């Protein structure tokens, strides 16, 4: 979730930047100001104030997610007037900006980097495990309730809301994504130990 870097100050990196595109095309600032619509007729200053006031007052209340999306407009609190219960009953078609994903960090023993994934983008364990395998270039092995993950040195584990480390796959998927705080792919004897507790 990185902000667009502006090149306006000091070093004029822009001049020496290597980009694709015709010479002379400009890098425009991707951050759209929120609130002003183009198809409005001109209103008096007072109404402008009103709107910007309501926008600024509410941008704090909104998720950080909306700041990174060039296209999405900051939503005003309580508008449109739908009860939150109703609003939350549907997942609207997800744009990258609007989806309130469940982002968790994934670490792997021995790997120098951390990754972050959105648990909501997976429909179930098979998909998640496949994605992890691809991400960290390893194989997980077969899951069985009794023995954990067989056939490899690795076991995917997660820390839940209570701070306990559990084996991925032990609880139903929905329960997992709502309680998982972060993932850790364990290696070696520690991994084997976890599996045999079931």
């Amino acid at each position: 979730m990185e902000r667009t870097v502006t090149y306006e100050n000091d070093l004029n990196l822009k001049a020496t930047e290597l980009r694709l595109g015709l010479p002379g095309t400009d890098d425009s600032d991707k951050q759209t100001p929120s609130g002003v619509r183009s198809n409005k007729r001109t209103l008096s200053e007072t109404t402008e104030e009103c709107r910007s006031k309501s926008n600024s007052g509410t941008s704090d209340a909104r998720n950080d997610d909306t700041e990174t999306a060039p296209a999405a407009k900051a939503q005003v609190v309580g508008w449109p007037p739908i009860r939150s219960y109703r609003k939350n009953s549907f997942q609207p078609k997800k744009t990258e900006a609007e989806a309130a994903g469940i982002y968790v960090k994934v670490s792997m023993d021995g790997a120098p980097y951390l990754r972050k994934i959105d648990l909501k983008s997976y429909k179930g364990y098979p998909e998640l495990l496949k994605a992890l395998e691809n991400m960290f270039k390893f194989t997980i092995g077969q899951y069985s309730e009794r023995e954990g993950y067989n056939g490899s040195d690795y076991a995917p584990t997660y820390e839940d809301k209570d701070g306990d480390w559990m084996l991925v796959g032990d609880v139903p998927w929905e329960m997992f994504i709502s309680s998982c705080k972060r993932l850790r792919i364990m290696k070696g004897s520690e991994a084997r130990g976890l599996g045999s507790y079931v």
Partner: protein
Amino acid sequence: MREDPTEMSEDDDRTTDLAGGGTIVVEASSNKTRSCGGNGGGGVGVGTIADYCPSPYPDQVLENVLENVLLFLTSRRDRNSASLVCKSWYRAEALTRTDLFIGNCYAVSPRRAIERFKRVKSLVLKGKPRFADFSLVPPNWGAQFFPWVSAMAAAYPWLEKIYLKRVSVTDEDLILLAHSFPAFKELVLVCCDGFGTAGLAAVARCRQLRVLDLIDDEVNEDDVDWISCFPESVTCLESLIFDCVESPVNFDALERLVARSPSLKRLKLNRHVNLMQLHRLMVRAPQLTHLGTGSFSTSDNPAQADQEPDLSAFATSKSLVCLSGFRDIVPDYLPAIYPVCARLTSLNFSYANINAEQLRPVICQCYNLQTLWVLDSVCDEGLQAVAATCKELHELRVFPMDAREDGEAAVSEVGLLAISEGCRKLRSILYFCQQMTNAAVVAMSRNCPELVVFRLCIMGRHRPDHLTGEPMDEGFGAIVMNCKKLTRLAVSGLLSDKAFSYIGEYGKLIRTLSVAFAGDSDMGLTYVLKGCPKLQKLEIRDSPFGNLALLSGLHHYYSMRFLWMSTCKLTLEGCKEVARRMPYLVVEVIGDTDEGDIDDSIDKLYMYRSLEGPRADAPSFVTIL
């Protein structure tokens, strides 16, 4: 059909008239009584009560006769009028009033209400302003049930019915209720919060409980198995509505409960009840008239995934007239409800993500439908199908699937026009859309003269007529001009002061008005305050109305239940001026929870008439001027 505040329509304007003016008549310590708008007029009047009749005996006979006659008087408005005739009528009415209506819990204190009305069996109590539903009122603002339930526990041990709307209710309150009222029969909670399954368990134990309706509440997800707490023997249950309860219920206990509740007519399940379970319940309760179908989907349990649900119970039902639920609908199973469509008077598809093709075969059989709630996923085509068949339609609500300003447009002026041409008996409409035209709104004003409630929400703020580029003034102007019975109006889109001049000029019966992102200047609000004599509830947000406009309504504020203005152009001085000049008005300035002092330009104003003065339970972010 009994007049029922729990019916799907929230706009029971029949019963919300005049804020129960009778409840704020000051206790007569002398022969004079100050009545604040108690009898339908505007402003404050001072009436003199006639002296007593000279001889005691005819008076006693008269009072006995009077009490017996007044027992038949049920309308709140009539009772308020009767109580003003003379002192003995006042007393007789106070003794015989059994249904207490409090439109604003802060307008009168529990003590005052109890002192006047001794024999109350039923209470209706309303708390927070409606904009609380949209997160505009910080939590812990007030409207606690406790002061009322604790006072009534002592005063009305025979209490049978309680209806609460936008009140904060705790589990302890519900436990106190269950212990204090042995004859308790009906509890209806609408848009309430603060309680959980522990409180529900206490209420379930009331042996004479007939009605437990939870509508749009926020229920804490505790793990108490409240369904198992109903009496073990045959129950008197007539209505059990819990579709807003997010936590799963013990299904086996529910099935047993339904089986031993022969009077059960209304049952609305939450989304954790699947189709297989629904069938089992319907088989146990073939006498149901109102059914909330739960998820209308198959079980999440993979072991049951292959089983086809048995949907034959719909075919055998002879009594179903109202269907709702469909929380996670599998449209393939929708044909199951065809057998009941012809008898349906009410259908709530507002959680059903279905398109026009899926709606059409259902709706084309619903020719007796009077109330329809849908999602805009049905699109204009779906609404055209509704218009083609539902000639008896009284109420339509179209909710947005994508509740954002720049969301996808699913319904438009095309749908509105179609409805207006097909459903001529329409009385109430709530319509969310992304774009609209004046022409369609004008057409509706002409085609649907019976309109009592017109609420149009163009979700894009300040959006003009998308064909002409004009403001939406003429459309709303036509509505107030042509719909002579209109009592409730909500406006949206680009609106100038002209729209408000129309409302002030023609909206003579309007009681509730909602304004957002509209108007040019103080004149807009002034037109309304000076022009609408019946105005009771006015809620305004993000509109350029300032102190001048606020002060133009002083003549009318005692006749109103409340005024809400947020993110307008009011200042502290203006609000203080109102507070100075109107001693029976409580003027609340509401800040954000973390800020301490308010500065000169205020964000939220909520003011209401009251006999009690500033409330003692105001939190730190509320300043009462």
